[in-house]
């Protein structure tokens, strides 16, 4: 800090917000204002005002007017968190000709009024926070924002319906999209479903055209059977490494004729697409409408890879497309923005041992039922028991399996009520069986959802309000013999009931992807303790993350139905297009720099930088920071033994001054 600005104290304006009553309820705003004007007058405060809503246009105009008329050189706004309104007030300063970085926000709402109750104590703390900000802002230096160009290409991770939607929106706007999917085909969970609620459209009928469009779009480069392994860079300029797993099929030669699949002699249980209810060949395309159409060889199960013989697929392939020598391949791409649409996993119903899944044959999960009711599924759409032939006469559908339960997941999975109603309808329609629905609360809040509930009621499905206690095969009498007995309290009747059924369907909840934590680290997005990704703002910015340039869509942030996932895919695309159209991105000018005259060339900082932004000049024996690579964390600033490194926005002078200010009252008392 230069000596002159210290001696001739810059003029500071302090503005204290009531935030309606959010702040003034617990902080005596008038007292803080008066104190700021009097006590901080010596610090350079020339004006202190309070206002009902500082962030309103009238509030901002107040500041703008003072800057112009009183010649303010620094502004402190004591209001909410800088994460909410820092930009707002910097904007106000800028409009009236003050460098925006000479404005500081003091958080007296999140850190004072909302978390404390004693008004006198809260008021004193508010004063301390304001004093800290005033001392700090005096040390602020004018900065220029950094502008970098945005790469127009986009990476979409996850080829479910949300990812497909996002990719199509961007591609249709004329920009290139890389769509990465780790399974052999795009389509996601939706491709497994039979019907979709509440309209009962066939899932394949509405999804397949979108998949086809994405697969054939000139602006979309599909990378299926691939995973992102490394991400570097920042908004506008990401470098992404993608691993392409070996397909053992040369996609340039393959025509997708399917002869290899037909000739493959080995069948395994398909745990992914068929949810464990059916089989697939070892060389396979997950389903008939798969995009791309090329099959994949499941190497760990392939007889050739196990024993070195077989090669039936290779023998019969009419285009010689089978290539057992393929290795995994890494490709590196440049993109400006990333959309994460990585979806969800399903709850493992075996964990609820009292429902008997995995032990009692005729207990099915919802995803198994989806496959069973799908005409292309393992039973050809016939609803049958585990023996593969007997139609159930009575079916019990259990809601909230693994959801809304502190033993498993606390949250509501949001789709299970509607999904269960859909199942009830399908069972009634196809088998005429008696259907019971066991629910804790019916949650049908979206468009046409409750009407669907009404329809299922009308169809004669029997609803029992009660969380099922157990599903057992231990019969107590003749009526129960050979059946699955659902034991439940009918809470509306206030009595325990034992209801014998032939088939039980467990409406299992959604869970974050098992590798969500790794994904969140890879892309630098926040992840809650549950494992769901964290939105920038849950209400007002649900598709952005705290990391600029990385958006999220679909179930990666929490359970959602298809309409919501599609809407989010489109919304995330809109965010990306907005960035692309701006052509450049404004970055906070928070960077470290080295004063060469002070640098002793000790190289301590060199190894500390995780972004390799510091380079050492052997000839001059000094280090230098590349501003394009520096992310502004400040670790090198703190470590430099010579004090040669300074960090803009968070300089030593600023922080030490803030400490002084925060402790001003303590020292006044000495």
């Amino acid at each position, binding site marked *: 800090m230069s000596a002159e600005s210290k001696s001739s104290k810059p003029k500071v304006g302090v503005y204290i917000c009531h935030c309606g009553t959010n702040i003034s309820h617990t902080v005596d705003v008038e007292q803080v204002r008066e104190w700021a004007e009097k006590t901080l007058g010596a610090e350079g405060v020339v004006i202190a005002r309070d206002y009902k809503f500082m962030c309103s246009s009238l509030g901002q105009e107040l500041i703008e007017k003072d800057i112009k008329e009183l010649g303010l050189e620094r502004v402190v706004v004591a209001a909410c968190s800088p994460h909410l309104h820092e930009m707002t007030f910097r904007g106000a300063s800028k409009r009236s000709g003050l460098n925006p970085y000479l404005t500081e926000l003091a958080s007296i709402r999140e850190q004072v009024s909302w978390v404390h109750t004693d008004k006198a104590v809260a008021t004193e703390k508010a004063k301390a926070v304001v004093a800290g900000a005033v001392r700090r802002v005096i040390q602020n230096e004018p900065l220029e924002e950094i502008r970098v160009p945005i790469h127009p290409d986009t990476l979409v991770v996850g080829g479910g319906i949300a990812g497909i939607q996002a990719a199509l929106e961007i591609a249709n706007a004329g920009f290139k999209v890389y769509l990465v999917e780790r399974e052999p085909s795009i389509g996601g969970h939706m491709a497994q479903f039979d019907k979709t609620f509440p309209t009962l459209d066939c899932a394949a009928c509405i999804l397949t055209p979108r998949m086809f469009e994405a697969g054939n779009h000139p602006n979309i480069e599909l990378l299926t059977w691939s995973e992102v392994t490394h991400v570097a860079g920042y908004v506008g300029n990401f470098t992404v490494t993608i691993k392409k797993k070996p397909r053992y099929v040369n996609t340039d030669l393959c025509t997708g004729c399917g002869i290899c699949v037909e000739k493959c002699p080995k069948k395994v249980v398909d745990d992914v697409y068929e949810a464990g*209810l*059916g089989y697939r060949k070892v060389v396979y395309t997950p389903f008939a409408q798969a995009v791309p159409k090329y099959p994949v060889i499941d190497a760990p199960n392939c007889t050739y890879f196990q024993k070195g013989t077989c090669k039936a697929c290779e023998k019969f392939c009419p285009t010689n497309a089978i290539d057992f020598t393929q290795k995994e391949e890494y490709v590196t791409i440049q993109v400006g923005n990333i959309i994460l649409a990585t979806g969800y996993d399903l709850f493992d119903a*075996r964990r609820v041992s009292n429902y008997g899944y*995995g032990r009692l044959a005729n207990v099915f999960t919802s995803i198994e039922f989806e496959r069973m009711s799908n005409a292309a599924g393992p039973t050809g759409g016939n609803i049958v028991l585990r*023996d593969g032939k007997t139609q159930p006469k009575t079916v019990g559908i259990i809601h909230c399996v693994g959801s809304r339960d502190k033993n498993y997941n606390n949250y509501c999975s949001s789709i299970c009520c509607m999904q269960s109603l859909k199942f009830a309808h399908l069972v009634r329609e196809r088998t005429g069986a008696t259907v019971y629905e066991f629910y804790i609360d019916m949650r049908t809040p979206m468009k046409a959802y409750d009407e669907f509930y009404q329809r299922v009621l009308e169809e004669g499905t029997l609803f029992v309000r009660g969380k099922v206690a157990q599903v057992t095969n*231990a019969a107590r009498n003749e009526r129960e013999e050979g059946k699955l007995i659902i034991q439940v309290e009918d809470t509306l009747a206030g009595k325990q009931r034992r209801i014998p059924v032939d088939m039980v369907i467990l409406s299992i909840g959604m869970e974050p992807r098992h590798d969500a934590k790794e994904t969140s680290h890879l892309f630098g997005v926040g992840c809650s303790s549950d494992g769901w990704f964290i939105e920038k703002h849950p209400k007002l910015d649900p598709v952005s993350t705290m990391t600029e340039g990385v958006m999220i869509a679909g179930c990666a942030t929490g359970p959602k139905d298809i309409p919501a996932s599609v809407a989010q895919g489109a919304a995330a695309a809109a965010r990306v297009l907005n960035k692309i159209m701006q052509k450049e991105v404004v970055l906070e000018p928070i960077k470290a720099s080295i004063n060469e005259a002070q640098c002793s060339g000790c190289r301590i900082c060199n190894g500390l930088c995780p972004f390799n932004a510091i380079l050492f000049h052997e000839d001059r024996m000094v280090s230098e920071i590349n501003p394009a690579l520096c992310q502004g964390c400040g670790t090198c600033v703190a470590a430099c033994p010579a004090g040669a490194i300074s960090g803009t926005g968070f300089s030593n002078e600023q922080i030490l001054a803030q400490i002084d200010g925060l402790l001003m009252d303590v020292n006044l008392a000495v």
Partner: protein
Amino acid sequence: MNDYLFYPGCSMESSAKAYYDSLMEIAEPLGINLKEIEDWNCCGATEYVGINLIPAYSLIARNLALAAKMNNGTKTVVAPCSACYLNLAKADYYMAERPALGEKVNQALEAGGLHYVPGTLDIRHILDVIINDIGLDVLKSKVVKPLKGLRVAPYLGCMVPRPDYYHRWSDPEHPIELEEVLKAIGAEVVDFPRATACCGGHMTQIGPETAYELIRRLISSAEKYKADIMVTVCPMCQMNIDAYQAETNRHFGTHYHMPIVFFTQLIGLALGFPPEKLGFGTEITSTKEALARIGVEVPEAVEEGAPRRKKEEGLPMPPRLLKNVKGKPRNAEEAEQ
């Protein structure tokens, strides 16, 4: 030799003497060294806590305080009785979870010159010790007379696997531990669906009709699954099913004959001890017929007992999920395939 502090519990001295005798026999060859807590007192069963909370927990905690003082190189207390095990474990857990309770109980203990810091001891059930400390491999290696042909219904009852605040068991409702031990000694374990259902507890005393129904469910189910004998880890379960079986039959006009013994008795047989040393013969519902099968080749034991899914037909089933299983993973072979 593994050292343990031993809390036998009142029933081991009387109604469950067979449990005590058989445990004392098998302890040595299995390498279990049990040192009885000096001058232990009753845990209060399920009765005291329903009358007066602080005295009930103080009564339990006196045992914990005595055990903590013993200091023979171990902090592990072993209880064979389910109710005792649960009471000791619960007192330890709740005294920590609710510090106010811990404080009051210690105020009371101080009147007797004692003190207990929750968490000092590890409270475990003897079945847990056998499967997780001794291990199935050691157990198997000691078997000289496998119980081939004996169809047993593993009956664990309530208070061992539940509420399981310390997560020691593979599952609160369908745990595999007892089943594993019985398989290890060569018995044929039936897929008994009521393995952790209730025997009626103290209802045999205060509401016998309620208890008879619960007992009927158990013995009828064991019979349906063609068990020769039920095997338990709990004195209360043994007592209710063994001693109240005749009354239950009388009540319902049925003719069930389902003997029930302690798992340690069967281990004793497999380890080659003579039945009379293991407390056989003290049961009310005779085990004679069932015991006659041991060592005898039983022809064609294939019955329509447990309805198992046949392979290669119909739709595939998910593999069984195993949580929390210490020691050898049960389906290691399956997992490798």
